[in-house]
């Protein structure tokens, strides 16, 4: 038979939700949900599904994912993360709620070096969640702040998501990197304000009072690690590497730091790190395949065309359209990973954004920030899953804390929507020729 759009959509989305509730892994749920549609629809067959999935891996840009993860994993096991935490301690540990601020600050530092949020949640979480619990912080708060702060990893440059976005939609990745800096820092400040509020209410302690000597020591220790963004951004700006290739520079430099400078990574450990990177990367990448199939089927049944038509009919204007775009990214982020959402939804909404006179760079920032929030929103929020498993708790039981911490972050997203200059000012100032 030939399925109608409504029936196909119901089978796909309904099937997916049912499978997820039954605790089928999300990657497989996306694939399994396509089976009834493919079985019923005469015009489709399993071959097409397999090919869609397979071809989605056939992309050079996705190589940035394992390389940035490799860089971050090398930092975590090379004790570079510890040095960043030391630096964050002297910078922010003296405030009430000290370790909470340290958690946020180290995520900002980590974000400036790595393009991945999950590695931040895993690496910093392993050290800071137990430390916070020991100092009397609420376990749920420790988990929630670790997860929420890690989302800065993909907003503050460098960023895997921006590389994929720039490649898929032909936008300068350099300009996207610059556009993400200010919103990222604003989110960091909003998080610190939230930590301060929690500290006042629950009477959380300060972590340490830095001395001149400890401050100097911390800066010295972290200095070499903080050079990574310089290398990555220099590599792109100087034209040595493409954005995807820049990920390999980050990995190479982290390897050099770990093996030669700090000598904390042994050749044997490199093997383990390569393995861990491969396994973790392929878990998310595998999901990109099934998500692509799922998205392709929605497109096959004309769903994106309906969305665009609907949005054009509503005559929302610039601000309204931007709000709807943010909402759609936030909503998709609840269920699917960020990269497949960029591929499925980003390309569909780009013409909508352009029609509403939203700059492609601002559109990218709205999308990326919204998707970054998706990293901590259940049911499918990888960073929250990771930090909850480190803290030994169920995702549902920390939901309230996550929502409280997310609210000020959503306010920053709203500011980014209302004032495009927040994103545009830095790239306009430093890269004027990417605006014609």
């Amino acid at each position, binding site marked *: 038979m030939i399925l109608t759009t409504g029936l196909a959509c119901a089978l796909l989305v309904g099937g997916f939700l049912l499978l997820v509730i039954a605790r089928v892994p999300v990657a497989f749920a996306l694939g399994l949900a396509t089976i009834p549609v493919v079985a019923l629809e005469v*015009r*489709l*067959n399993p*071959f*097409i599904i397999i*090919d*869609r999935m397979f*071809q989605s891996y056939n*992309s*050079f*840009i996705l190589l940035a994912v394992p390389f940035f993860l490799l860089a971050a994993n090398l930092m975590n096991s090379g004790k570079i993360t510890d040095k960043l935490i030391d630096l964050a301690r002297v910078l922010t540990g003296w405030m009430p709620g000290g370790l909470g601020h340290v958690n946020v600050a180290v995520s900002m530092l980590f974000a400036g070096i790595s393009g991945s949020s999950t590695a931040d949640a895993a690496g910093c979480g392993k050290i800071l969640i137990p430390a916070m619990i020991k100092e009397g912080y609420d376990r749920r708060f420790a988990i929630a702040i670790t997860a929420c702060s890690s989302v800065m990893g993909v907003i503050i440059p460098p960023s895997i998501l921006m590389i994929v976005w*720039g*490649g*898929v939609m*032909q*936008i*300068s*990745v*350099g300009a996207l990197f610059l556009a993400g800096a200010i919103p990222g820092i604003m989110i960091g400040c909003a998080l610190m304000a939230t930590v301060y509020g929690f500290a006042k209410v629950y009477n959380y302690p300060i972590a340490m009072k830095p001395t001149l000597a400890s401050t100097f020591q911390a800066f010295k220790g972290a200095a070499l690690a903080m050079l990574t963004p310089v290398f990555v951004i220099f590599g*792109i*700006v*100087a*034209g*040595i*590497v*493409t*954005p*995807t290739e820049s990920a390999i520079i980050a990995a190479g430099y982290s390897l050099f730091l770990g093996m030669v400078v700090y000598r904390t990574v042994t050749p044997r450990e490199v093997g383990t790190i390569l393995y861990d990177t491969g396994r973790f990367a392929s878990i998310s990448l595998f999901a990109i395949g099934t998500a692509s199939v799922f998205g*392709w089927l929605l*497109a*096959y049944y*004309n769903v*994106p*065309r309906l969305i665009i038509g609907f949005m054009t009919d509503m005559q929302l204007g610039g601000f309204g359209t931007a709000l709807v775009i943010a909402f759609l990214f936030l909503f998709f982020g609840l269920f699917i990973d960020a990269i497949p959402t960029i591929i499925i939804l980003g*390309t569909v909404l780009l013409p909508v954004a352009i029609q509403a006179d939203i700059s492609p760079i601002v559109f990218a920032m709205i999308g990326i920030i919204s998707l970054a929030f998706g990293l901590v929103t259940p049911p499918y929020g990888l960073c929250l899953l990771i930090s909850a498993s480190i803290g030994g708790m169920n995702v549902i039981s920390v939901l309230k804390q996550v929502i409280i911490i997310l609210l000020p972050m959503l306010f920053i997203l709203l500011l980014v929507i209302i004032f495009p200059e927040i994103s545009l000012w830095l790239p306009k100032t430093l890269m004027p*020729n*990417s605006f*014609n």
Partner: protein
Amino acid sequence: TTLRGASMFDGNHTFTKTMVKFGELTNQYYKGDVEFDLRLNGELGVEKDYVTYLNQGIAIDYTILAPSNMARFAPSIPLMDMPFLFRDLDHWNTVLSSNILSPLEKELSDKADIVIVGYAGGGTRNLISNKKISNLQELSGHKMRVMGAPIQAQVFDAIGAAPSAIAYNEVYNAIQAGVVGGLENEAASIQNLKFYEVAPYVTKTAHTITVRPIVFSGKSFRKLPADLQAAIMKAGKEAGAFGRELESREDAIKLKQMADAGQVKVSDFANREQLLVMVKPVQDKFAASIGATELLEAIRTK
């Protein structure tokens, strides 16, 4: 019967218009009932996927493809868009209106089960660069991105450029960063993908006039009644001619638009004839390697 087509572009693109025309003409020539469902904007994937679907006879029945996408099945197909194959638009039009390419059509049908029903195309590919390149000296050592087929790299290597491997969706960023100095492409792509923002110099090497076959899935084609098949072949030829006329005209207009808007600076290549001499051995060698020496000679003398 409903026949489904796919286009990576919107309704204004010449490929889309050509396929719409193809549908109209088929309806006109066929007495029975046939409907065309053309999906736009890459809804059903990219050209690389279309090849797979056509080969398997699934998802789509017809589309327009760049020959390089079919090279995985039939290694001689890249001959169709080999640089410096056609002298000029007239030569190109004469070749495509004849049935001189039928050996390639047969190979494609045998190895990929894809039927060519007509030839569209007509974009002229030129060099696009971030600095001026107007003669052999300036071309020498110029780092440029080429399409992923050995013959493409060999030809540009033969004329002194330094071809480089960069994924198409990284080209924009690679030029902006200076990883490469440019690429080669037609006016429509320069405009759509905004390559002029990073590489405003266009040098009229006119090395390729594009050939874009209108293709039908062999599996779907054989299922159709004979009179519909005949209507499709007839409509394909005419839609192809329509598409060629439209695209070659629009190509020139687009280039002029961009030049008038100050987006690109167009210049000629000094002593272009020299390039033809330089690439001839490479072309001959490639033709020999795929057993198409006679075909190449036939095209050249047409």
